């Protein structure tokens, strides 16, 4: 019976202190009764293997003990969907763009790559994972607290169905009105961009006499229009084939990718502004030029970050549309419950 005592001791370890003796006495009696019955039917005392089989059938000590404990969960089913939603929002809205921007900087910015290799690279990733654990940990703690005090959360008990969002109807086609307006805007944008060299002095205003754009930027003057032309092409096709929703998502993905490449290339050209005609500037104008170049660099970095976020969104939309197309028409369309029942 040494095996049985060892088994009961193992079960006891996982039980609440106040109930250990009671539960072990009852469980022990049941197992002894089973052993006696088995021995009576076999006609001999159980050998070790037979006893092991009987105890294995009873279950692992931790599992057996677990059944006596009240069911506990850190975050219950009522709050879990919201918890999952917040984690996803943080992962896709903050962590994924972080990785994307970091990857872009490592690929396209040699100076950043040089300063973030070896131990510095390990340090960056250590910081990233610290951030991930801190964010997810903080969110989990907040939701665990909400779960604990759930009964006191008023909005879960006093809610009004009339305040729920309206039923979202997924568009099954690209609106022609949207395509026409998009096309008109694209044409206006291209016209504005092409006339820019002639009327550029209007933009620069009084400083036009002192500063001008770096000539190296001229190489990117026409390529900037490529993403717009891609979107225009998509808008023209969608006028005729509005049901090709995948085309819009794919075109936006492509145009954003090209725009990202252009802006990263432009960000490498320094300075963006130079003194007009290479004239010597006085101290005040030289300081203004440096400040404007700094601001332009920041603006370009912000645009790159925005394009990166757009790329993630459009990549997701493209995959979703292609999947929807592969699954056949009608799949995944949100219909009001009254129409589906």
């Amino acid at each position, binding site marked *: 019976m040494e095996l049985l005592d060892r088994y009961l001791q193992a079960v006891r370890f996982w039980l609440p202190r106040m109930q250990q003796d009671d*539960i072990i006495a*009852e469980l022990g*009696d*049941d197992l002894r009764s089973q052993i006696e019955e088995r021995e009576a039917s076999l006609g001999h005392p159980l050998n070790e293997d037979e006893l092991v089989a009987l105890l294995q059938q009873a279950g692992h000590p931790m*599992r*057996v003990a677990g*059944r*006596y404990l009240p069911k506990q969960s850190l975050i219950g089913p009522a709050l879990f969907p919201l918890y999952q939603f917040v984690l996803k929002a943080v992962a896709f809205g903050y962590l994924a763009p972080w990785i994307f921007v970091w990857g872009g900087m490592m690929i396209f910015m040699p100076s950043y790559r040089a300063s973030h290799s070896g131990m510095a690279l390990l340090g960056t990733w250590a910081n990233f994972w610290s951030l991930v654990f801190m964010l997810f940990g903080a969110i989990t703690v907040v939701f665990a607290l909400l779960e604990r005090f759930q009964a006191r959360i008023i909005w879960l008990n006093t809610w009004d169905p009339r305040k729920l969002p309206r039923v979202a109807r997924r568009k099954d086609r690209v609106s022609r009105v949207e395509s026409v307006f998009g096309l008109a805007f694209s044409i206006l944008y291209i016209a504005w961009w092409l006339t820019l060299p002639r009327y550029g002095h209007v933009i620069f205003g009084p400083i036009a006499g002192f500063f001008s754009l770096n000539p190296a930027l001229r190489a990117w003057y026409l390529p900037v229009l490529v993403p717009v032309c891609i979107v225009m092409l998509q808008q023209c096709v969608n006028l005729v084939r509005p049901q090709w929703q995948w085309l819009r998502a794919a075109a936006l993905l492509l145009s954003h990718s090209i725009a990202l490449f252009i802006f990263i290339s432009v960000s490498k050209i320094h300075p963006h502004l130079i003194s007009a005609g290479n004239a010597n500037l006085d101290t005040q104008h030289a300081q203004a030029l440096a400040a404007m170049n700094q601001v332009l660099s920041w603006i370009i970095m912000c645009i790159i970050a925005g394009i990166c976020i757009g790329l993630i969104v459009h990549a997701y939309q493209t995959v979703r549309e292609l999947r929807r197309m592969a699954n056949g028409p009608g799949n995944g369309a949100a219909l009001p419950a009254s129409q589906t029942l």
Partner: protein
Amino acid sequence: MKHSTKLDVDLFENLKLELRRGCLIVAVLAQLRQEHYGYTLRKALYDLGLAIDEGTLYPLLRRLETQGLLASEWREENKRNKRFYRLSLQGELILQQLLQEWQTINASLERILQEA
């Protein structure tokens, strides 16, 4: 194919567990209209066609006792201390209500199955 078969088995086991959970409570309460200790209760249920392992029965008995539906006492029998359970007064009332509910559900299910 093999994967989907395993999924089907898992799904069935989960659904069976859900279906049994409520029935076991009714069966245990009904059987404890007569006094039993754990092992004899398990045997009695098994002999009547409802197998229940000790890891499920004893926690259930404790829960029902905490809820006031069962009463228990330790007594010696066959030179061993055993915990005897029986239905409490409150347990009897609840059992009647549960049996009524079960009969209603059963009747509805039979009608539904006849229509199908």
